């Protein structure tokens, strides 16, 4: 068998999908927030909260499905917190996002030690079942992409969301509550990012490791920009990043050259190159990052 065939087989497709799954969910989550006009640099932290809470809940109840549901709930709560600070109190959205990320690192580590009396890694817990080689969350992604595409472009809510991020004043004039739309956008982003975290911890593995998101939230954010704030674009760019991951792992598995550190670097380097070469053509929502106040 030649090298190309040894690299590109069914397994690499499956690994690509597996690696892309949390990115797609978090990326689409970020889309709901950014389309409404709130920068979402906090995806990383929200994912970490989701990863931890799903493991903790699965540990105490023995039911990973409850764990996944809990991750969505906790993610939504963190999203709510993010929304209150950024929307109600007009905090700088990047700064409030950074605060969430720091909080996630500190609080998950703190709770890990408080609940499990260990540091670093939780004991193994019940993980989600495997259906045809994938966690159920992977199938959910297919639904999510289609559903959010329709929601964003063909429903009143989606169009209002876009308007809130493009021209909030006009939306308010049309009698829609911009603040409420933005709250919803940020909370949805929290729910989805939480689920993305659950996919990492109880979808692919069966435990929580400190800082296990390892920058995936930020890659999801880059995929969101690279995908021009559309569900299909996010799907495409996340698959690209997932493939980068899978390729790196495959090359390492075949013992080809690259040390692991360079493989770890690969998605971040690809992200930077992708942003430089494509971002010029992508246009962010006009009112993104600006707080909105009723007059």
């Amino acid at each position, binding site marked *: 068998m030649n090298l190309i065939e040894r690299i590109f087989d069914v397994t690499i497709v499956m690994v690509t999908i597996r690696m892309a799954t949390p990115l797609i969910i978090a990326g689409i989550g970020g889309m709901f927030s950014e389309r409404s006009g709130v920068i979402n640099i906090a995806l990383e932290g929200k994912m970490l909260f989701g990863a931890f809470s799903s493991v903790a809940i699965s540990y105490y109840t023995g039911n990973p499905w409850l764990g996944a549901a809990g991750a969505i709930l906790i993610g939504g709560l963190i999203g709510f917190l993010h929304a209150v600070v950024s929307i109600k109190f007009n905090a700088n959205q990047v700064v409030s996002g950074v605060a969430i990320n720091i909080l996630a690192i500190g609080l998950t580590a*703190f709770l890990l030690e*408080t609940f499990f009396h260990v540091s670093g890694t939780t004991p193994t817990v019940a993980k989600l079942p495997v259906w045809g080689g994938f966690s159920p969350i992977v199938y959910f992604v297919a639904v999510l992409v289609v559903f959010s595409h329709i929601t964003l472009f063909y429903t009143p809510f989606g169009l209002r969301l876009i308007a809130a991020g493009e021209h909030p004043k006009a939306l308010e004039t049309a009698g829609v509550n911009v603040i409420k739309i933005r709250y919803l956008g940020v909370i949805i982003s929290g729910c989805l990012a939480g689920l993305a975290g659950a996919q990492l911890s109880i979808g692919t593995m069966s435990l929580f490791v400190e800082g296990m998101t390892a920058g995936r939230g930020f890659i999801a954010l880059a995929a969101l920009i690279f995908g021009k704030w559309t569900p299909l674009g996010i799907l495409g760019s996340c698959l690209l990043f997932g493939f980068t991951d899978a390729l790196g792992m495959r090359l390492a598995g075949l013992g080809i050259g690259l040390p692991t550190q360079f493989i770890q670097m690969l998605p971040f380097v690809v992200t930077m190159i992708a942003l430089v070469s494509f*971002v010029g053509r992508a246009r962010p929502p006009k009112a993104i990052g600006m707080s909105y106040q009723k007059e």
Partner: protein
Amino acid sequence: MTNTRKGKCAKYFEVALYPVIATCLALLVGVIIMLVTGHNPVDAYLALFEGAFGSSVAIAETLSRSTPLFLTGLAVAFAFKCGLFNIGVEGQLHVGAMAAAVVGCYLTGLPAIAHIPLTLLAAAVVAGIWAGVPGYLKARFRTHEVINTIMMNHIAIALVSYLVVHVFRAPGVIPRTSTILPSAQLYRFIEFSRLNIGLFMAMIALYLIYYLLWKTNVGYEIRAVGHNDKAAECAGINVKRNIVMAMVISGMLGGLAGAERIMGLHLSFIQGFSPGYGFEGIAVALLGRNHPLGILFSAILFGALANGGFRMSMATAVPTDLATVIQAVVVFFVAAEQLAKLFIKRRKKGRLAE
């Protein structure tokens, strides 16, 4: 004259009020978290305070923990002054630390008076170039520096990890470089403490950046760009050049923070040596309102929280991570300044009603 002085005092008081309130609220949130998780907050904070300020050695160790924070806080603040959010200080600190470890170890035959400045310079230059990349990408392609600096954090940490594991590794279990030469080590001036002259280096940096920002044309231009880049452009200021320069200087400060850790504390590059000095710098800068004087105080606060945290976790089993949580909450409250203002307004209203 007394009037203006009074006015100035009142202004300082006002500026300092929100950060102080934010800190108090964050400590209060810490209490709530401890109560919810079944810890005794009084014991914990007492142990924390004793660990941070209980003896002269404790104070020295707190200042030692604060030393990199003066510099990383300054790094974040400097970029902020130009309207840039440099989240990449952690990465810049790592590449700077690695540069210092290599130059400190392999540049032989120099007296300390030449070796120390050269080692610091190497760290500053490497980290400055590293930070210059996202600055250039911002200026040339308008890609967001926040994302690029985050990406470069991950790249930097993986890169230095490669270097310490595969290229410069000294024998031993933990990946680390060989000990740097005595001629590159920063002098420790307090017995039983690792506090070193890097502290004074950081103080000088605080003053120099203050001077640069507020007393020179260079600083004026940088602040003008940060204030309103379009207006600055109209006034004939080269916005792109200032963006790149602000990022380079910011990165250099981050690199120096890394160098101090290597040359004064660890004496070699140890994998995973940073508990997140670069990220703590964000909180330090925000709480210090991006002003060197504010950074001085907030860096000592966070240094004390981290240093006292060890004592706290040993004495009361409250995990040291509580310090990180408090830090995050501080950033929240500082970001949501209106929240703090709400408290003050209520108090004022109450006073008026009396």
